[in-house]
């Protein structure tokens, strides 16, 4: 069927003709991370430098020129995932990837790699463990264990060019769904594949669609939830920026499956680049007749509106998100009625996460069996994780569901780093998964498979897939407080237990951190946490206590140390520090004495100084001032 669409045929033809002439392809990562590191300057420099060498440069692959001279294609892609090493530049067919490229490096790359096919060793990635240089993605340990499905095109294609998407097999699934499948066929296919919502809940996508499909209504809606608010998660941003057409294609398929002619993509305002790329992609799709009236000449109508959020985390919750699209305060509503019955503007609505929708075309195109064969039986497919924190390689990764935590941290992540950035796996303390709704995993979970159900069984959740590695210089009570502060701030205020309870939990955590707590404080945290879980309407409140409860469960000792011994084992809680000057190390230089804001340090010149504990406010100024590391914190 795909061969029938004139736009697809033409796009592929056009592309083939030009690709035959391309002698080198330079892909510059244009994700938010690499742009912040200066990727656009590098991009511009490449275009200028190549032109200065009077080489034929092509940036859009749209040229109609009939000359057969070879061209060099300079393209920007979406996020390649390895943000920390950006800007990333890959060059084909040499299959070489350069990391941390500066505009100053461009002339050398043109001179050596482009003109003479030589590799510039100093720009290659150095494996931090093996300490050797690696040339291409299949050698780099960060990429080796990954299996990219929803990120399959991110970093490979130019997200602002629909032809690249089409040439890569894009929109074939949409055409298959529109012409060869009934609405029920599509729902069945997705249900059989076992695809579960990637936004955190893990509800079977096929069932959600079927429930909406069978509802009779004059209008139905499909909404893409791109309000990725979890701190530490950025997979949806990367997909919207790097492969926006995959989201559009997923929505077209979902639209046909449930009988919707209108779709909304709700994107958080913190992602301006994602909004821009989505809008470009939608415009292109409209021009090709893939969106609008009678799409692909199939008789179906479908169009998409992009809506920007206004900065409210709770709008990631589906009923709150719908209220926000309707122009109201983003407050959740009790369910039932579920959106499948009464959703946007009171009509049956399906709300899917970005990653879920980007996975849909793969399943339709390649069949449910292939998808189901990846991952675990109850959580098939792959999952993206945003791997960050104190880990050697941070960035966006995608692996089969059920991968072990240790494989992610020690192999893909390259190991845990200490406060100086050196790799030291002994320093591993915890991995926080699922953001403010999730929990902490510890050493004992390193062998646990990461999937929906095993995580749920220990009180954590996969959430949207934020994975923050924490080393043992970080205080776990402070980590819990960080998340509590976040949910307390973001609570919409509707449910008393969530609004007031999170505030009280935060106060209790402050008691521990500032040395006012006792054993009862911990008990109270647990009781209150369980009450908030029961007494809140939406996912925000129901999961808000998770970070605290799970850390109390796995790090009770550390909580007790704060509560009873008034000690912080990681030495992070300033109020619990007991600064002492080690007489043997102190040379009596008087530096600490001068920096102490309350005059708590006494001592004669060239004689060891002493801190008066009663006066000390534990600000840490003396520790910072001392050049001999003579002050310990107890």
């Amino acid at each position, binding site marked *: 069927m795909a061969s029938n669409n004139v736009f697809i045929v033409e796009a592929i033809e056009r592309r083939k003709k030009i690709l035959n002439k391309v002698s080198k392809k330079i892909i510059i990562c244009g994700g938010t991370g690499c742009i*912040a590191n200066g990727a656009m300057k590098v991009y511009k420099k490449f275009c200028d430098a190549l032109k200065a060498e009077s080489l034929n440069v092509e940036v859009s692959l749209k040229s109609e020129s009939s000359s057969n001279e070879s061209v060099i294609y300079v393209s920007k892609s979406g996020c390649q995932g390895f943000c920390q090493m950006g800007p990333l530049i890959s060059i084909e067919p040499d299959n070489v990837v350069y990391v941390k490229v500066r505009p100053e490096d461009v002339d050398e790359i043109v001179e050596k790699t482009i003109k003479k096919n030589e590799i510039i060793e100093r720009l290659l990635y150095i494996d931090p463990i093996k300490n050797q240089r690696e040339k291409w993605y299949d050698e780099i340990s960060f990429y080796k264990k990954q299996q990219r499905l929803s990120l399959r095109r991110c970093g490979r294609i130019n997200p602002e060019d629909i032809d690249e998407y089409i040439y890569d097999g894009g929109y074939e699934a949409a055409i298959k769904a529109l012409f060869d499948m009934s609405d029920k066929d599509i729902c069945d296919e997705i249900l059989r594949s076992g695809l579960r919502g990637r936004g955190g809940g893990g509800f079977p996508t096929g069932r959600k669609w079927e429930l909406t499909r069978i509802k009779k209504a004059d209008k139905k809606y499909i909404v893409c939830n791109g309000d990725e608010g979890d701190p530490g998660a950025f997979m949806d941003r990367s997909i919207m920026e790097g492969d926006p057409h995959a989201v559009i294609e997923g929505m077209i398929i979902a639209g046909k499956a449930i009988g919707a002619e209108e779709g909304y993509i709700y994107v958080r*305002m913190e992602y301006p680049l994602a909004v821009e790329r989505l809008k470009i992609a939608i415009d292109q799709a409209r021009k090709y007749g893939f969106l609008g009236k009678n799409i692909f000449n199939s008789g179906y109508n479908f169009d998409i509106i992009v809506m920007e959020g*206004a900065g409210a985390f709770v709008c990631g919750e589906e009923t709150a998100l719908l209220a926000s699209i309707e*122009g*109201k*305060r*983003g407050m959740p509503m009790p369910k039932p009625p579920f959106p499948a019955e009464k959703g946007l503007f009171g009509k049956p609505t399906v709300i899917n996460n970005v990653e879920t929708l980007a996975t849909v075309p793969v399943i339709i195109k390649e069949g449910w069996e292939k998808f189901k064969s990846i991952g675990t039986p109850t959580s098939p497919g792959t999952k993206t994780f945003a791997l960050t924190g104190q880990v050697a390689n941070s960035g966006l990764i995608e692996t089969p569901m059920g991968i072990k935590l240790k494989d992610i941290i020690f192999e893909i992540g390259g190991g845990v780093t200490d406060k100086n950035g050196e790799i030291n796996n002994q320093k591993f303390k915890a991995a*926080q998964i699922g953001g403010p709704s999730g929990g902490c995993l510890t050493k004992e979970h390193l062998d646990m498979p990461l999937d929906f159900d095993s995580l749920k069984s220990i009180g954590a959740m996969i959430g949207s897939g934020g994975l923050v590695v924490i080393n043992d210089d970080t205080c776990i009570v402070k980590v819990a407080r960080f998340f509590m502060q976040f949910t307390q701030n973001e609570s919409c205020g509707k449910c008393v237990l969530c609004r007031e309870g999170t505030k009280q939990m935060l106060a209790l955590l402050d008691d521990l951190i500032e040395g006012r707590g006792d054993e009862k404080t911990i008990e109270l945290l647990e009781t209150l946490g369980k009450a908030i879980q029961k007494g809140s309407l939406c996912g925000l409140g129901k999961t808000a206590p998770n970070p605290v409860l799970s850390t109390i469960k796995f790090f009770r000792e550390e909580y007790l140390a704060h509560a009873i011994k008034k000690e912080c084992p990681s030495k992070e809680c300033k109020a619990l520090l007991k600064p002492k000057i080690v007489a043997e190390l102190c040379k009596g230089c008087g530096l600490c004495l001068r920096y102490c804001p309350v005059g708590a340090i006494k001592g004669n010149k060239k004689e060891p100084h002493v801190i008066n504990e009663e006066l000390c406010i534990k600000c840490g100024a003396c520790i910072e001032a001392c050049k001999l590391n003579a002050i310990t914190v107890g």
Partner: protein
Amino acid sequence: MSETLTSEKKFEKVSKILEKYNYDKTKLIPILQETQEEYRYLPEELLSYIGVSLNISSAKVFGVATFYAHFSLEPKGKYIIKVCDGTACHVKKSTAIIEAIEKKLKLSENKKTTPDLLFTLEKVSCLGACGIAPVVLINYTTFSQCTPEKILGEIEKIIKLEKNNGVE
């Protein structure tokens, strides 16, 4: 007379925005977004004006304007510094950056904008650029792997630029 003229002018831009959205009350959020973009904040009288124009109560408009973190009822600075305090940035010590900026610009938790309306400091939950943490956004430019020194340097550059009326 002159007062009516200025107020007419004041409402001119928001009227255009309302027209663009066809006075559709479900588009209240995009309308407020564009109004804020235009005026740099949401003046009270504009909120009432929008309410009347859309045929919804001012209370509803206020409710929405105060619910979302992006909206501000007070004038914001010309340069909005957003320091990411998401998980990844937080564990990579974004607090030190916030403290350094507060000290430099004499700002605090309760005082977010400098009196000359040049800078506004905001702490945001996650900019989704965790791979390059800690991250700071000044208007639309993202700065990666920040240190207090790096950001203070950028602020210094802006102050100099403003002093020279935009000449570098």
